[in-house]
């Protein structure tokens, strides 16, 4: 999903000239402006979608867009992330890939996908169970009723069968992915932070 375009770029895919030749100076200048635009978006904590770049004040003709983005992607910090509706660009000087990935899900209103991805990442990377209440806060900002619906819909889809929703003895809801974390470990960690040692974790 995430890509760093500079080295993986297929030179035959560009419009800047013959294969293996560097882009022309004019294109490089415009690409540099595109990169700067993407950086400004990242500084404002938002992604720049392909469509947005096209419609930006740079007014890039559609036929030049891919090539310019390709060239902009040659810059060290410019990265892309694919959503289901568009490709999004960001500068990793101002935005982490993890946050970009999350932001795409939120941007495309794929809340269930976002929730599942967050739970799997938590179980795989740290590992830790995910407190359901964290989704109320920024940057998720999911309403309580909406979260209830999302959690219920997890059960209905086989694709999410690795995701377990469970409660600690004080009634707090947690999620974890059985694929990446032993369920007993997840439950014990949640119980420790909710009930047995809450002062440390709350």
């Amino acid at each position, binding site marked *: 999903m995430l890509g760093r375009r500079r080295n993986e770029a297929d030179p035959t895919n560009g419009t800047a000239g013959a294969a293996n030749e560097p882009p022309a100076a004019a294109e490089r200048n415009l690409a540099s402006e595109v990169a700067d635009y993407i950086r400004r978006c990242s500084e404002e904590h938002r992604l720049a979608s392909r469509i947005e770049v096209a419609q930006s004040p740079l007014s890039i003709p559609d036929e030049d867009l891919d090539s310019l983005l390709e060239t902009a992607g040659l810059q060290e910090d410019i990265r892309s992330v694919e959503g289901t509706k568009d490709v999004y660009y960001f500068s990793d000087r101002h935005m982490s890939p993890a946050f970009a990935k999350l932001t795409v899900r939120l941007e495309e209103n794929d809340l269930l996908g976002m929730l599942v991805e967050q739970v799997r990442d938590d179980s795989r990377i740290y590992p830790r169970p995910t407190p359901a209440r964290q989704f109320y806060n*920024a940057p998720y900002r999911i309403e309580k009723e909406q979260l209830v619906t999302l959690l219920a819909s997890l059960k209905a889809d086989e694709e999410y069968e690795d995701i377990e929703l469970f409660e600690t003895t004080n009634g707090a809801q947690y999620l974890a992915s059985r694929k990446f974390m032993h369920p007993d470990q997840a439950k014990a960690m949640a119980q420790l932070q909710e009930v047995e040692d809450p002062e440390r974790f709350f």
Partner: protein
Amino acid sequence: MADYGGYTGKILRVNLSNEQITEESIEPYLPYLGGMGLGYRVMWNEVPAGTDPFEPENRVIVATGPLAGTGAPSSGRTNITSLLPSNPYRAVADSHMGGYFSTELKYAGWDAIIIQGRASRPVWLRIENDQVSIQDARRLWGKGTFDTIAMVTAMMGKTAQVAAIGPAGENQVNLSVIRTGSSHSAGGHGGIFGSKNLKAIGVLGDGAVHIKGERSEWLRADREMMQVIGANNQHVVPSTPQPWAEYHDPASRWTARDGLYWGAADPPVETENCEAGDVNRIGYRTQKGVKDHGPVAEEYTVKMGGCSACPIRCHSNLRVPQLEEYGYSANVSNTCMGYFSPGGVMVKGFFDTGVEREGPFIARTLGSQIADDLGLWFNYGQMGRDFAYAYDNGILQRVLPAAEYNEIPWDLLEAGDPRWMIDFFDRLAYKKGEISHFADGAYWIAERWNFGDDYWNSAKVKLWSPLGFPVHHSNESNGQVGALISCMFNRDAQSHTHQNFLFSGLPVSLTKEIAGELWGDPSAVDEPQNYTPMNRYKAVFAKWSIIRNVLHDSLSLCNWIWPMAASPLKERNYRGNTALESIFYSLATGIEKSEDELDLDAERVFTLHRALTVKQMGTTDMRNRHDGIVSWVFEKDPEKEPFTPGTIKLEREDMELAKTMLYEEMGWHSETGAPTRATLERLGMTDVADELASLNLLPT
């Protein structure tokens, strides 16, 4: 004394029995650094085994380290050393407080105060630079700590710093504190001040603490520190996903985020997303009110407070108007257990205000005010669990005289009414009735009221040691590592070295990588709740954690922040700099020491603590008589085997192996855990070895 920086070079000795005030050099104590180390050496030299904590012969040492007052980051701690009344052997222990007291003491020209004897009447100690006097405290005696501190401040001037006891200390309650500032308490030694008729110490200084090193080098070290420092407890990732952050952890104390405010500030202050490396927003990273109390605290938060020279402000300054209904000030400040411990006696829950979590919030802030004013300590939350055990098992009906039992307003407790604490804490602080023995400490109350094995062996009661101190980042913190650390002291272990590193918020894969670099192998660290059997690297990690804790308490650094094992910086691959203590020490004092050399000094300090414990307990059998662990640690989760996912249960034989490995790392006798002559001599303490030998307390 040689011309060192950092140190003032002078120790103040006050004999309250004959009112002699003398000055001596810190030179003999330099091998012990200062603070905790200085305190242990004084106790070894001057307090015979068998001394009762409340006898005039006991000493109480209020000590700073060489970094106090230098402006080194997070260097505001004051270390207090004395015999601990709540310990069954009355063994030596330390209590610590933050605030500005140690800095002011250095400005007044003193590294430490050694207090001995007993005044014939209530007194307070007035220190204004080199003018030191013993003052009449009859007007202060009987006052709470808030009034006492205010009255001394009124006499000395508003920039004075005051450490005081409340009625609990005056009445020689075992679980009592010495308090300074608005919210900084040293738990366990208030009664020692009380036994000496010492109500308070006021300090005012107009000097400076000079550093020997190049100012540019100091600035460079400071700049690096500001880059690698995280939030409270050296949590290095934010609690929510943020644009700049690769990682996050909902349990992190780096709670600042867009949309989270100090809501009672005028105008409200948004904490915002505080990026790593943004040195001007470090003080916003920890919104501790919300961390401690939940979202309900946001609108009550005025600002964050803290200690001298600390960029991390971890005490929440709250304005809670509801407290005035109970007769207490609306302005309250504290952090973590300062709120949770007093509130822990609300064992039947909290009243409902109709606002989510507001009942517990009001009760905990009120409990903090009452306890701080009376000068009560709660043994790191243990008293609440002791009370719950006794109450729920009908023990109080058995042990309290009927008249006393019947006059106690149990209805308030049952209703979750916080006025219960007003009544209960008053009984504790003034030693009113049999119920007041809860403040003797866990060991003594269990003996007095004949608590059963179910008390000692209950995971819910959370005792750690048969000596009566509780879990404090023990087996829940990396299994054997936290367990070993918890066995070593004479009270709950106050070590956060391991805790901060393990729960920094970084993925365990990164934590293990760093562990491999610091302690020899990634297997020093386990995944939480998924432990592996003991290995040598865990022993190295445990030793390092202990001696860094001791180092910090000897230098006046805060072990809730230090050491810098990890950092929030991706460009450093999240590595910190564990040499920063030695860099600041060398620059401050002019005594050039490497990281290893300073760790060796700390090892000397902790081995002296061990030698003191051997002497005071009168046995070399530390393994069985001192380092014991209560049974629940090995019997928790009966359906699970140790070292399987989902349990923090340990295994007895493995834990004995763990002790052996730690003893070996420390150079102590591998069977008994007592310091050997060879190790004492290696650490320059031949006189300690000789004295232990004369007492037949050296292992053979």
